């Protein structure tokens, strides 16, 4: 199969993720959409690695996975802390500061 199709898929996944971040209200779902964007990046890296016939893309994908794992640890701890104090994980509720 033509590898370019994977690039289209990757761009589609990235767009779905970005739209989710902007549209969804639950902090956990927003965060999952960010993870989807990172995975779209991974797909693009691996596909480009295949197209250029070098291994850099696949190696970079591993780095991205590690970074995404670290982000989960930090992100979930922040979301849990704010859920415990507000009993809500909605990003609209956290609005004490404006402008």
């Amino acid at each position, binding site marked *: 199969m033509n590898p370019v199709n994977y690039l289209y898929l990757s761009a589609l996944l*990235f767009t779905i993720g970005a739209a989710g971040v902007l549209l969804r209200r639950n902090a956990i779902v927003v965060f999952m959409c960010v993870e989807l964007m990172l995975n779209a990046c991974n797909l693009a890296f691996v*596909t480009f690695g295949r197209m250029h016939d070098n291994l850099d893309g696949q190696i970079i994908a591993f780095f991205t996975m590690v970074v995404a794992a670290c982000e989960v640890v*930090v992100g979930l701890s922040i979301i849990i802390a704010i859920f415990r104090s507000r009993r809500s994980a909605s990003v609209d509720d956290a609005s004490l500061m404006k402008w």
Partner: protein
Amino acid sequence: MSMSTAATATLAVTKVDAPTIEYGKLSPILIIAGVAVVGVLIEAFLPRPARYRAQLTVALVGMIAAFGAVVWLARDLPDDHRGSVTAMGAVAVDGPSLFLQGTLLLIGIASVLLIGERRLEPAGGDAFAPQAAAAPGSQQEKDAAAAGWTQTEVYPLTMFSLVGMLLFPAANDLLMMFVALEILSLPLYLLCGLARRHRLLSQEAALKYFLLGAFSSAFFLFGVAMLYGYSGSVSLDKIGVASAGAMDNDALLLIGLAMVAVGLLFKVGAVPFHSWTPDVYQGAPTPITGFMAAATKVAAFGAMMRFFYVALPGMRWDWRPVMIGVAIVTMVAGAIIAITQTDVKRLLAYSSIAHAGFILTGMIAMSDAGVSSTMFYLVAYGFVTLGAFAVVTLVRDARGEATHLSHWAGLGRRSPLVAGVFALFLLAFAGIPLTSGFSGKFAVFQAAARGGAGSLVVVGVLCSAVAAFFYVRVIVLMFFSEPKVDGPTVVVPSVMTTAAIALGVAVTVVLGILPQPVLDLADKAALFVH
């Protein structure tokens, strides 16, 4: 080639050459990374009462040692001031990275002095929550506060963040740049949520910073993927070579350029990616705000300059007009919205947005003078910002820091020294002569004018005038209005905060009166290694 033969060919390579890494050249980064790990071990193995002194000592000694290593590496640079790349081309050890690393370490030392301050809270303790995991207002939190707990995990977190900051302007390939970006950001997200007072605001700041920061780093990473697809490498040099000959508008190159730029502009807080800045600056514990405002900007502008100057100099006719637009919008929006602010920390946040625009002006010059003036501005701005936030920590009432501007009325009559120091910092922000702000603004505007961005200079000067209005308004409020009856008091800090403020004042005055030695140093350090 079919898939199976490709796999066999890959497997057939049995001998892998181990990468050569010159550890000496990476020593500043490695020292701070070691300090951070030792900090974690101190948290694990030392009894609670002994941790504070141990953490503070290890962090300060480590940063001074790392600064010594930076000086040693800078003396070792060859006479033509060209640096070298190390770690298989992933890290550049050249003038700009060493200059900015030195700046970051000095800012780090002053920040740790602020973080370590324990004399401001009437009930004892520092600016950080006694137990960050306890919900605000819960019994658990009250117990922790009553027991007089203090946490020291902020020190290793700050050091980890500093590792990322040291690596960010030195990263010579985009993968390293992405990893450095995350190393500097992730601890900062946590640090933002650790304030002792106003914990809901603090947690909200952490949530906003985290979600938007993760969103922008996904853009950065997708941009890296596009540039990798375009050039077949993530090395800045190779992208530079590949993009130098780009005759037609290649979609991959342009998308990659734009998305990496989004990630970097978010980190410096440029409009239209600035919306997190005021909320995060207001909600975060003030010592952390000072550290973040000063050091993140230094690191992110260093990385941005390296990205545009090394990887995409051949594309300047494509990115320069966009960046000029971003700089103009940033200066105008920052200066105008700041006028309407009523909170000191938010005021300083919008002022930092306006300053991001001024610094972009220097970067856009696309010359050695542009690099050196930007670096000089970063030094000047970093210490003024840190000093200003340090003063904010001192003005307090019963509810903690009194950040509402109306509380600052008449402060100059009650505490002329503190108000005078704050006025000096505000004048430096405004760019009044004989302060470092003037030297910095003069340098970047001169570089931009010579680089052919005259329009930018005109907008910059006008915005400086608008900005001067609201800085002077605060000074007038402090010195020429009656103090409130139940107004805030200025708490006398320990020697640590005093030292940090004194450093800010010294740098502001010295760079204002005698800028030439530092300008010469920045000139010598202005060459990126290719």
